[in-house]
């Protein structure tokens, strides 16, 4: 008898190479790479371009054009040429309301959509069109069907943005082996290439997102210590700033969409030219014949975008703090993303760390190469090198509790996969349902956090307040995706969802939330105190009311009036905003009912003696 022996997770036929790719789905450009004969390479298109511009054009005859051909049409037909769609992934309409774009957004609940000549398209569909082009390129180049793909996402992407990316891949017919954080992918490519050991910082400034990750590299292990970033900051913002500067300098205003897009393209080209030139001329002819001709120096570019560079330093410091590391503990800084080519960005990083950053890998390709290496291992093509990757979640996860407060369940920078369970109880007698509201972010108040999902646990058997025990479990998988389940412990009633958020935060909100959570720590503290005091006071109120209904006859009129007065003043205090006043009123109420409580206890005991169970009282 023949026994087929295979390692878990590996193909039964290890000699057969399984085709897998790594895809960097970028804001500006996308790439696909694979491992061939032991080394990772980016797969070029027929013209030899490795970079596929992340641009999709939709024509009225439903023809979809992706990449360079679509880019060529963007000045003529901006409304139907979608660029930087990554910025809209997992986002709602209100989130992009202030973004200067030529698109016609469709007002629908959930993720925003775009009206194009070929119909309404969601960002997931547009991203899927980019992925389809890369898949076709890879299959033509490798001569076979793909087993799967590793798709990279910014480390600072939240659950909605990750889920949207995974959906796009599925829509493109790709089997997603793993969502991989971009800086981690870069670290793999860099680390394996240089046999690096020690603690490294990856500074990843892409077209539309900024990530910073701190990783510890030891033999065969890539361990992310902390990550931070800004999912709405990238090279695009430098282009926009420059675009505005050109308008001001040339004395222009109110451009049409075509001219606006033209100048934006010119701005980007000028920025790129200044990477190795001290100055450049920006020239363009607008549709009404106006000639634009302004000189731009590297110094001016640095001045007008200094605040954007500064915006990257805060997350960098925060990541160091979270990792409990100082600048001196860092062995090297790896630069990733096309925007890190800007000399003044490099200078800022050099200054902070007191050393030159590492740039020996192409910052445009390094993410795709790392993703390809990971895809190769995940597909079961184990080579000589074997390594393990341990990543983290970028933002804390929490639940809404009474008083509009967020109870953090999984703190940011926890190693994934991870799960945490928390017990909650009912607040009112006989309560049979409980709403579960899942949030992401660092703030203490629900109204300041990003709402991920709401669901309801029904059918809790009626019990006295506080008797039900509801255990809510958060599970974050290796893709960084969250699922939540809830279970009432005494009855086993269960509810669970794969968190599929349909609504996004406003553009800057994630970064803003973090900043504000620090700035407003004291506001939050006060609000938290007030919230907690209210919850406490309300539960005493409820208990008193229930007790009066049941055993009100134990009090004479004078006593009853005293209790009623304490009830009223507690209600009034709850309506106000003074935490101490609420607490004092609740204490007074407790005091006023202590004699009443003692008499109820006596009654309960005498009933108990006459054959009742104590829990029936």
């Amino acid at each position, binding site marked *: 008898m023949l026994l087929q022996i295979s390692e878990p*997770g590996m193909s039964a036929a290890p000699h057969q190479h399984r085709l897998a790719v790594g895809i960097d789905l970028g804001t500006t450009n996308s790439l696909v790479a694979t491992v061939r004969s032991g080394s990772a390479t980016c797969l070029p298109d027929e013209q030899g371009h490795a970079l596929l511009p992340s641009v999709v054009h939709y024509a009225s005859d439903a023809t979809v054009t992706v990449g360079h051909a679509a880019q060529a049409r963007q000045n003529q037909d901006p409304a139907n040429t979608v660029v930087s769609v990554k910025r809209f992934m997992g986002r709602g309409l209100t989130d992009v309301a202030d973004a200067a774009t030529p698109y016609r957004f469709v007002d629908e609940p959930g993720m925003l959509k775009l009206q194009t000549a070929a119909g309404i398209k969601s960002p997931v569909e547009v991203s899927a069109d980019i992925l389809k082009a890369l898949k076709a390129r890879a299959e033509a180049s490798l001569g076979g069907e793909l087993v799967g793909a590793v798709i990279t996402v910014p480390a600072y992407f939240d659950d909605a943005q990750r889920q949207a990316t995974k959906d796009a891949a599925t829509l493109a017919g790709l089997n997603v082996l793993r969502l991989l954080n971009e800086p981690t992918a870069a670290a793999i490519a860099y680390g394996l290439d240089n046999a690096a050991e020690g603690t490294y910082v990856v500074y990843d400034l892409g077209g539309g997102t900024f990530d910073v990750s701190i990783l510890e590299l030891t033999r065969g292990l890539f361990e992310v210590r902390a990550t931070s970033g800004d999912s709405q900051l990238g090279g695009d913002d430098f282009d926009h700033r420059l675009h505005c500067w050109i308008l001001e300098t040339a004395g222009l205003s109110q451009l049409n969409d075509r001219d606006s897009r033209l100048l934006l393209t010119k701005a980007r080209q000028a920025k790129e030219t200044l990477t190795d030139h001290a100055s450049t001329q920006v020239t363009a002819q607008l549709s009404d014949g106006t000639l634009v001709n302004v000189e731009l120096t590297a110094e001016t570019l640095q001045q007008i975008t200094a605040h954007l560079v500064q915006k990257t330093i805060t997350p960098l410091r*925060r990541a160091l*703090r979270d990792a409990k590391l100082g600048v001196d503990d860092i062995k090297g800084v790896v630069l990733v993303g096309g925007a890190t080519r800007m000399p003044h960005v490099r200078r800022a990083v050099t200054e902070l760390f007191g050393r030159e950053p590492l740039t020996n890998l192409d910052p445009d390709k390094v993410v795709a190469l790392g993703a390809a290496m990971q895809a190769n291992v995940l597909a*079961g093509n184990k080579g000589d090198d074997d390594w393990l990757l341990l990543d983290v979640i970028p933002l804390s996860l929490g639940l809404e509790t009474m008083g509009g407060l967020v109870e953090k369940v999984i703190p940011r920078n926890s190693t994934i*996969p*991870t799960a945490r369970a928390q017990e909650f109880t009912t607040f009112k007698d006989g309560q049979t349902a409980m709403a579960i509201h899942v949030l992401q972010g660092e703030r203490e108040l629900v109204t300041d956090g990003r709402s991920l999902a709401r669901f309801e646990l029904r059918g809790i058997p009626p019990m006295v307040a506080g008797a039900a025990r509801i255990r809510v479990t958060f*599970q974050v998988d290796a893709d960084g995706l969250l699922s939540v389940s809830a279970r009432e412990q005494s009855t086993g009633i269960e509810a669970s969802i794969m968190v599929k958020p349909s609504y996004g935060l406003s553009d800057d909100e994630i970064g803003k939330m973090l900043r504000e959570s620090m*700035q407003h*720590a004291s506001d939050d503290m006060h609000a938290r105190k007030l919230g907690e005091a209210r919850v406490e006071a309300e539960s005493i109120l409820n208990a008193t009311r229930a007790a009066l209904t049941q055993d009100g006859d134990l009090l004479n009129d004078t006593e009853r009036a005293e209790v009623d007065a304490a009830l009223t003043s507690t209600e009034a205090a709850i309506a106000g905003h003074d935490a101490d006043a609420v607490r004092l009123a609740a204490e007074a109420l407790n005091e006023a009912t202590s004699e009443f409580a003692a008499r109820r206890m006596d009654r309960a005991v005498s009933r108990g003696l006459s054959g009742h169970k104590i829990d029936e009282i």
Partner: protein
Amino acid sequence: MPFDFSQSHFVLFGLPTTFALDRAVLDTAYRKLQAEFHPDRFAAADDAQKRLSLQIATRVNEAYQTLKSPLARARYLLQLNGVDTQEDTNTAMPVDFLMQQMEWRETIADAKTQRNVDELEELNRQLAEEITELTVELAELLDEQHAWSDAATAVRKLRFLEKLNDEIGNAIEAVLF
């Protein structure tokens, strides 16, 4: 994928069930287990295997986090010995300890108001020393004397100190960012 979910975190990592811990041994054992069970090892496996590896890797992470932190490790060790640390219910602390806590809080608040990061960093350093002292005491109580009740009190104290540590961290962030 044989894995015993009922074993203790200490047994899982092949460590003695003591508060004293060889961090290098823990780290090595942790990495070895993740290398074996991490979902990346099962990306091409069937759904049942994927699910099991997710559960195991999650447990290994939880166990590592628990043992890595002195507070969580002490709490867990007491729990294994049937002792509830009553951190949320038992607030009866020695008066001098509470007085000291209030002093800490006032000093932190003052330094924060004055936006004095150096002072906050100095407080951080002093607190780290106190935490180390308390950790040494915990090792004695748990490993030598098996004085569970006193150890539970020490755990509650350590919880206070960890909270102060968080407060200093938040204050520094609030001043810096």
